[in-house]
């Protein structure tokens, strides 16, 4: 057991994967000499050399597209996209090539790529450095999507992602890179399962990434108020571990989903619908989602207003508990003139 930051845990995960399998090759901008802008790949160039830790030209489609070629050749490329907002130039290669080649070729071509993305906001960054693009990738069949929230998972799940024969988009919350946690370097827990980050029995609060921290704070605050919140960290966004989620919702009867990304057609919409399909008769209240606003990521000085904080989460918790809460804003929205006419 070691005490490591998430960045260091990821670095250990990479080192371990590279030692275990010489077909693992890292590619990205500034990942060599510099060790990556977040220093995740620190020291790897020295240990593995420039053929396995490749400082690439500044071309995201190029990074992912050449990784596709390496995968054709039997390598297991791990690419680093420098920041979330810079994955878009590589979007075509990810969704049209990486995600589909196995399907297109009836399973004859494997794309065991891991695409690491320093992700999401809350770090006071410049424009295009705080994006939450996960829903695009979750929506794309053929990809697996992982979002980690603590050093232990970062270490274990990165190794699992690299060992997986499917492509994995791997989100690393920047906000937590320097947060320390205990890491058991021998841990080999299975991939794709959600984690009950804090048990509880009144409300199921589902989240992932850096938002897990906020959710745990909310749960601690609610506890003082006599409300027991079960916080579930999804960890895997594709596939979602509905077994764990549904078991929790069947006990609590109440569910709130929260994430940084905008709400429209986002993870919360998906998770809530899937839970309603599975647990409708167990629900005591309409599910709630607490998300970022559906706006371009705001300037750093305003980002705190965008990120769903503890109070917004607790407000939704109050609502699912039927306690006084802020108005939803939905009340007067639906006006059907014909219906009013008919009533008159």
């Amino acid at each position, binding site marked *: 057991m070691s005490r490591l930051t998430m960045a260091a845990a990821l670095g250990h995960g990479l080192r371990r994967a590279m030692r275990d399998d010489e077909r693992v090759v890292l590619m990205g901008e500034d990942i060599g000499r510099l060790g990556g802008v977040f220093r995740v790949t620190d020291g790897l160039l020295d240990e593995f050399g420039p053929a396995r830790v490749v400082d690439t030209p500044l071309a995201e489609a190029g990074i992912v597209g050449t990784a596709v*070629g390496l995968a*054709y050749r039997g390598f297991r490329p791990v690419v680093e996209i420098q920041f979330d907002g810079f994955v878009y130039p590589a979007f075509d290669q990810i969704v049209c090539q990486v995600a589909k080649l196995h399907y297109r070729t009836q399973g004859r071509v494997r794309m065991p790529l891991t695409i690491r993305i320093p992700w999401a906001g809350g770090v006071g960054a410049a424009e295009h450095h705080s994006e939450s693009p996960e829903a695009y990738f979750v929506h794309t069949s053929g990809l697996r999507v992982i979002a980690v929230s603590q050093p232990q998972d970062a270490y274990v799940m990165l190794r699992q992602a690299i060992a997986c024969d499917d492509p994995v988009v791997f989100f690393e919350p920047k906000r937590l890179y320097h947060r320390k946690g205990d890491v058991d370097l021998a841990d080999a827990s299975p991939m794709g399962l959600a984690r009950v980050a804090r048990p509880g029995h009144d409300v199921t609060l589902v989240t992932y990434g850096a938002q897990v921290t906020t959710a745990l704070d909310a749960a601690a605050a609610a506890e003082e108020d006599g409300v027991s919140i079960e916080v579930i960290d999804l960890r895997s966004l594709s596939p979602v571990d509905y077994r764990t989620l549904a078991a929790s919702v069947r006990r609590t009867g109440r569910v709130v989903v929260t994430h940084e990304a905008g709400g429209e057609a986002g993870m919360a919409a998906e998770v809530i619908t899937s839970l309603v399909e599975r647990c409708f008769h167990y629900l005591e209240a309409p599910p709630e989602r607490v998300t970022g606003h559906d706006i371009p990521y705001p300037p750093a000085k305003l980002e705190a207003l965008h990120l769903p904080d503890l109070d917004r989460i607790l407000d939704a918790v109050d609502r699912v508990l039927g306690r006084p809460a802020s108005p939803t804003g939905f009340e007067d929205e639906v006006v059907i003139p014909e219906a009013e006419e008919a009533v008159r």
Partner: protein
Amino acid sequence: MTTMHTLNPTADPATDIDEVARLIRADGTRVCDGELDPWVDDVDHAFLRDLYRDMSLVRSVDTEGVALQRQGQLGLWAPCRGQEAAQVGTARALRPDDFVFPSYRELGVGLVRGAEPADVVLSWRGEVHATYDPQRMRTAPPQIIIGAQSLHAVGYAMGIQRDRGGEIAVAYFGDGATSQGDVNEAMVFASSFAAPVVFVCSNNQWAISEPVTVQARFPIAGRAPGFGIPSMRIDGNDVLACLAAMRWAADHARSGAGPAFLEAVTYRMGPHTTSDDPTRYRAPEDLEAWAQRDPIMRLEALLKAEDAWDDAFEAGVADRADELAAAVRDAALHARSREPLAVFDDVYAEPHTALAAQRRRFGAYLDGFADDEEDAR
């Protein structure tokens, strides 16, 4: 050394189509080219006849493909009539273990690399996305996203470097593709890492309805040196020149000297695909002019001039061409669609719980019709 402050483009890609390296003139006479000749000094009449036969087979299958589409047997077909020399000539220069990343129009490359009759029709028919085994044929499935495969070729070549393999990777694409970011990024990566890759641009003058001048104001081969990549501009309707140039390029890449780039100047005689109407954008005179440069006729003229032609050869090739076309037709007509739940196959290499659940549900739904089918019997 003098300092050059300005670099002025001097050539026009639309009007200088004759500024190309060639070994066979349009009338079939053999010309010498100091750069190309050494690469084909082993090419005897038997070899030339092989090239002729290959091009004839490609044309035959291509003609059959168009017919099958017209008869409703294929959803779409992308003809390559006129481009047989560029495809066959370059592909014949490769080793079987080299790895090729083609676009959807490279029928000839596929046939040279060993595609079976079913391999050339099943995807156009919509039975599967890709047919042959890429690893066995050392050829990636034909790419539809313009230019994407150029990066795959470079990545593959980077893999060859890591394995210290002696193979090369090859990317085929059109003139339109050279406008894509991917192709430009591919050249940057290839050059920076000295990857053993050859880029083959089949400049067939058109990207659907857009003439090459919309993509380029300077001959496309002229771009590669700007990336640090040596290039050659060749007559794409001259199969011998294509063979020679590709042997040069492949040798360059194989020797560890890094990538090479070929621009094969040719012409797409047919529509872009069977859905296209080229009369809307193309002058009939152009078509007529290019018909005079037909790659197959040209080689036939050379073979005749060199007394390497006889009726038995001609008939033999025609028979093979008919046989192959018939086999392709057969493969299309006898294609059996896969069972319904196969749509869920191979989305992932490892089990994915969400998709497994969806498959189960859809399977149960389909099973609900089993009784109806019983009744109907």
